[in-house]
């Protein structure tokens, strides 16, 4: 169903395709918000200002979801190239570990040290992303396998960097304000999230990059024949995902004031993939929806709060996520839609979408 090539949907088709894709996620998000408002009142959605910083339940959800948003945005680009990046959780831990460890070794309150630490962490994250991309593009390793290596080894590397400790940065260090501070009352993580989102949207929708990504994911061979340097595009997508994961790790570490190599960003890759899929980008590659991913992230963040608000124990979180994954997977499956709608379609010639679909070959 993602098979509409960019060419076919250019022009008028594009807007309605977007609407169709975003309709379900928006309905789910609205439903979750309504449940929360019904339970906790209008304060849930209305931002309030205290201590010179925007607060309120929903703003806090957005602030806490910033790392997941960054990773999910990077993941969207990778999935658009028909890939997947399992290593982002480990890169999150590595980014956090490098930044915290470097700051601890220097002068904690010096701005210069913090800037160097962040730059260093992002550079290493970019390097790891490029490595993943090179494994996929130049060595022809399946994305799931290529990134599995760092998913397994990455947390070991992060522990190596921190020496098995959990380095904590002092509360007066400028580093901490990346996670807890606010500029013009807006929390810094939200600003970073919005900035990265805007940058990626501009990068992919005002330049040819977005279309190149979609064409590489839609049909690598055809793109190569069309003269697209598919390998470079692929490496770029993984590189951006790596930087996003490193930045997410920095925000997470700054928010906590420490870097936990074992548990920091644990399972965030699964949440990110879930957010991307909820947002309407299928794992088969091709069309991607950065706006949809953002809504997906908001849904996951709101879901976690909703479970607490409606009085269920926090253990329900996993079960609720499982239900969401299941529903989304079913809604996106053409076979399931055909099967569930069959009783209503008797008499008409049954449409069997994707039955002879070349893309149907199981993608992993």
């Amino acid at each position: 169903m993602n098979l509409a090539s960019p060419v076919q949907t250019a022009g008028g088709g594009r807007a309605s395709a977007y609407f169709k894709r975003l309709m379900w996620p928006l309905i789910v998000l609205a439903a979750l918000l309504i449940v929360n408002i019904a339970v906790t009142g209008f304060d849930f959605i209305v931002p309030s200002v205290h201590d010179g910083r925007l607060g309120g339940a929903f703003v806090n959800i957005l602030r806490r979801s910033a790392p997941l948003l960054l990773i999910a945005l990077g993941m969207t680009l990778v999935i658009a190239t028909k890939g997947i990046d399992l290593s982002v959780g480990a890169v999150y831990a590595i980014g956090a570990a490098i930044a915290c460890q470097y700051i601890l070794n220097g002068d904690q309150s010096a701005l210069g040290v913090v800037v160097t630490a962040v730059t260093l962490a992002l550079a290493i994250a970019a390097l790891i992303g490029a490595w993943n991309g090179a494994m996929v593009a130049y060595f022809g390793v399946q994305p799931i396998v290529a990134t599995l290596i760092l998913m397994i080894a990455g947390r070991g590397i992060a522990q190596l960097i921190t020496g098995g400790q959990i380095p904590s940065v002092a509360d007066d260090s400028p580093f901490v304000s990346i996670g807890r501070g606010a500029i013009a009352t807006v929390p810094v993580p939200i600003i970073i999230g919005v900035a990265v989102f805007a940058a990626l949207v501009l990068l992919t929708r005002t330049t040819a990059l977005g279309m190149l990504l979609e064409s590489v994911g839609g049909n690598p061979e055809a793109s190569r024949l069309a003269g697209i340097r598919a390998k470079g595009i692929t490496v770029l997508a993984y590189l951006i995902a790596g930087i996003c994961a490193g930045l997410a790790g920095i925000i997470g570490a700054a928010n906590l004031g420490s870097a936990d190599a074992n548990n920091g960003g644990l399972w965030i890759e699964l949440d990110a993939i879930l957010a991307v899929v909820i947002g309407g980008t299928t794992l088969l590659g091709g069309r991607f929806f950065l706006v949809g991913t953002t809504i997906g992230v908001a849904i996951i963040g709101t879901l976690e709060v909703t479970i607490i608000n409606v009085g269920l124990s926090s253990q329900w979180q996993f079960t609720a996520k499982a239900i969401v994954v299941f529903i989304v997977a079913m809604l996106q499956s053409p076979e399931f839609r055909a099967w569930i709608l069959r009783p209503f379609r008797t008499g008409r010639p049954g449409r069997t979408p994707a039955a002879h679909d070349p893309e149907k070959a199981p993608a992993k």
Partner: protein
Amino acid sequence: MSSPTLTERPTRSTLFDGLSRYIPIGATVALLAAMYLGGIANYPNFDNPQLIPDLFIGNAGLLIVAVGMTFVILSGGIDLSVGSVMAFSTMACAWLTVEAGLPASIVVPAVLVFGVLSGAFTGAIIHYFNVQPFIATLAGLFLYRGLTLQISDHDMSIRDIDFFSWGMQRIEFGDPRDGGFSLPYISFIAFGVVILAFIVLHYTRFGRSVYAVGGSEQSALLMGLPVARTKVGVYAISGFCAALGGVVAAFYTKSANPLAGVGLELDAIAAVVVGGTLLTGGAGFVLGTVAGVMVMGMLTTIIAFQGNLSSWWARIVVGVLLLAFILLQRVLARSGEKRKG
């Protein structure tokens, strides 16, 4: 011949022909031998005859789960839910015997049947609704972890159920003082699973279908092979193995931890890949998986013997091993293409 682009599968027919398909498993066995000999050379007591049986005992759960994972990966799929299913099975054993007071002889078969059914359900969703294995089993990962936590969010002891003491009774082979060793009953479950899996994969119609579907689902369908039955079957097997792994863990630890087996699916996948099975499906051996599990067990043993190495080195080394084996597979695949092309 199409040039190998990006994420495309490598050309199937050229992979691992003739003798070269034994190279990865040979490399794994050689690595295992080298690790063992290196261990004997460097550490006193490493040649204790109990060391190798202990590898089997300590990794019995992982071994069983990895065997199930081998079926799924050979068929071209992946199963992320095994760690959660395993934890859920252990917890279900604990809850049903301790809290609900059911006899263990009913509980254990019930848990195993549950494993088969849940796996078959996942497989049916993957096949009939064309949901990607990654996503469908991701739902299982979340679901069973959530259910496990809902049964109990703390350790539950099953110490006072006699049934579970049975598993750790040992059979002695020779005198421990002169080269003998002992094995508990549960390790024979693991051996049984491996032997059964070997026979099913190599000597039954179902086994051949697994390889065929993993090689190319389209071709398997055109050849008239029962693709649906095969795909549902491999996930049912994986579900059964995960549930059995959970039961074995219940025997082994006599307690259920709601966070047991987090990340176990990664260890299982790593063991399968190190054992020489292609993650794209269609090529590999279940005995390679046994060697892969042994390599990972040997690694932790060596790190324990060394004493001053931290545990995270195990993860890094497993990552490096994965890298080495994946690159080896790629080199073999490429040289195969060149020979043919």
